[in-house]
């Protein structure tokens, strides 16, 4: 008779399933199922690997895309506004060809932001280990995969050995009771958690998001929530796959078919934390406490309810951190956030640029116009999202309202020396980082959900989405 197994967390199941050997009491050698690369950090990893005389163990399990430095203006080519961007694009293309790696190149319908296209193409699957030299790889935990960001050297390691040496993280469960209110999104929940617990509360932990609010979320919302786990300093985040996940994966380009599909589904249906599984830390939140949020400072933890004010320093926070943020953002403690005049609005990024995001933003824009002094830009997360949005006529809604409608890519989520917002510009942005100069020299970024961005673009100042105001 089999001994009765201790209840295990989802993370522990995936850890043991992928464990080749224990290297020491705290470090495991894990087999890596998928490696994703982009032109910003992918070319350098592939080049270094080649220069070291090493080869890729399983190139068919490696996928690459152009997203970070490629332009998003219509009619784009290898030429970039970023002065040396072309070098990055060509280096990745050359290395991908030399190594027989699948590349979603410029002009390919599968091209897009790495964490948008991977779920979309069925590259990431539930239960997989997946790594990418990009901090937002945790996004893909929303698919029920163990997916995390690493540096270039570790990417080289995974490519050359098919494995990674991983320090085993502690486990944390964040359960969210009840359902988010209308107009309150996964982005708001993530900012609520960041505001409440800070930017490093999850250091050394893998977070499992669970509870009714998470069960009720569509896959794209789960991806948004997990996306911000890196801003919590987590190793990564994961959400147990369920029927929605399996429905989402079915029929995607690289998803298994036939007997492989049946076997995969049977495996995925077992992927949940057992009842009674013990987590190192557990938090329970009430969805009803979450309101539309907006960041006010230069780190995502510096966020507040959109109807709130710029708060005092956090307990234990160095005065220099808080003061510097206020000075940089040109804000005073106690200032109201709603009503702050904005110069620009940006919808895009691996956080919030999927079809559902664009639909919700478009709902705020239909029949309305962006305020005259605001430059508004929408960058779909993938070429496929862009095409689907166009098929639904969303592009026309954005254009009619006064938004620029772009090709897909990371675009102005960050400034890499190319396109940028003007110095000192106050930008409302559906992205993930409000760091100093993130969207251009001296830019003041406020991160929020796509509907807050769209509503603010129309108002010309930070504003709650129309429906959320009506129901508040």
């Amino acid at each position, binding site marked *: 008779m089999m001994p009765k197994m201790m209840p295990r967390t989802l993370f522990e199941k995936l850890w043991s399933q992928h464990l080749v050997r224990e290297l020491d009491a705290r470090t495991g*050698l894990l087999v890596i199922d998928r490696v994703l690369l982009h032109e910003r950090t992918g070319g350098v990893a592939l080049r270094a690997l080649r220069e070291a005389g090493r080869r890729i163990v399983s190139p068919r399990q490696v996928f690459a895309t152009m997203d970070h430095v490629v332009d998003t203006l219509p009619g784009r080519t290898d030429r970039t506004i970023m002065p040396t961007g072309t070098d990055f694009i060509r280096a990745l293309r050359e290395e991908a060809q030399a190594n027989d790696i699948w590349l979603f190149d410029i002009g390919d319908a599968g091209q897009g932001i790495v964490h948008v296209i991977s779920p979309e193409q069925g590259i990431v699957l539930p239960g997989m280990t997946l790594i990418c030299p990009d901090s937002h790889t945790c996004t893909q935990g929303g698919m029920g995969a163990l997916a995390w960001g690493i540096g270039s050297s570790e990417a080289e390691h995974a490519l050359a050995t098919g494995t990674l040496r991983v320090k085993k993280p502690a486990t944390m469960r964040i359960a969210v009771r009840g359902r988010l209110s209308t107009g309150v999104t996964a982005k708001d929940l993530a900012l609520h958690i960041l505001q409440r617990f800070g930017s490093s509360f999850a250091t050394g932990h893998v977070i499992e998001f669970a509870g009714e609010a998470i069960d009720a979320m569509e896959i794209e919302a789960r991806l948004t929530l997990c996306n911000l786990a890196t801003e919590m300093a987590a190793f990564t985040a994961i959400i147990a796959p369920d029927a929605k996940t399996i429905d989402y994966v079915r029929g995607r380009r*690289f998803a298994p078919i036939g007997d492989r599909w049946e*076997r995969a589904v049977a495996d995925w249906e077992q992927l949940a934390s057992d009842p009674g599984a013990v987590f190192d830390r557990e938090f329970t939140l009430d969805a009803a406490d979450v309101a539309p949020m907006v960041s006010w400072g230069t780190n995502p933890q510096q966020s507040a309810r959109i109807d709130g004010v710029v708060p005092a320093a956090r307990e234990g926070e160095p005065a*220099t951190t808080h003061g510097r943020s206020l000075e940089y953002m040109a804000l005073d403690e106690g200032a109201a956030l709603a009503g702050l005049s904005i110069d620009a609005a940006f919808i895009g990024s691996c956080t919030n640029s999927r079809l559902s995001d664009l639909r919700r933003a478009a709902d705020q824009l239909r029949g309305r116009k962006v305020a005259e002094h605001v430059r508004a830009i929408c960058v779909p997360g993938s070429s496929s999202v862009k095409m689907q949005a166009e098929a639904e006529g969303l592009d026309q809604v954005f254009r009619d309202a006064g938004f620029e409608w772009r090709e897909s890519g990371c675009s102005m989520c*960050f400034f890499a020396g190319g396109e940028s917002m003007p110095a000192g510009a106050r930008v409302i942005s559906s992205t993930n980082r409000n760091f100093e*100069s993130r969207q251009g020299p001296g830019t003041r970024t406020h991160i929020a959900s796509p509907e807050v961005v769209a509503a603010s673009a129309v108002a010309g100042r930070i504003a709650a989405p129309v429906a959320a105001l009506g129901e508040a």
Partner: protein
Amino acid sequence: MPAPFTSETGVLAPLLRDNVDTDAIIPSREMRSVGKDGLAEGLFAGWRYTAIGGRDLDPAFVLNTPRYAGARFLLSGLNFGCGSSREHAAWALAEYGIRAVLARSFNPIFFGNCVRNGIVPVELPGSTIDVLAAYVESASDPAITVDLTACAVIAGEGVHTFSLDAEAHEMLLHGLDPVALTLRFGAEIDAFRASDRKLRPWAYL
């Protein structure tokens, strides 16, 4: 591979903020070439120079002050190295000459990047960070010793021990190449993959 790190002495510069992100350590605009070199000039560019894109030193920035010139160590707060996974942050620090960062906590990807590049991520409690901050401000010479063999920071009379997981400690102490270490298990990895392929055929393409 990075040089082995046993014990080193040098100036400790205080950068006492929480959440020093990798965009601040090296702005994306400073990562101009497809390579790992030529990045030291871009280190802390947004704070170090008076204008974005310029090279005129801002005298107020700690690394530009005579007292902390040639710093070999940095002292900081919570979640150092948060943000982008760019290993360029570690490459830039290493090229500039930074050998260890002492902070209350580190962002995990940055932590790994430090270890891969011979920079010691020294995690210390807030009270010790405060003691060290006071020390570098008042000592005639703001220099300390980081002894990795003993896992200790020595600042004047004060000896502050720290812990580092065994894997990271070994890598840094001996300047090891993790890929070469892992490839020693090549046969074991192949065997694992072969049996795993039978269990999870959909995971293999």
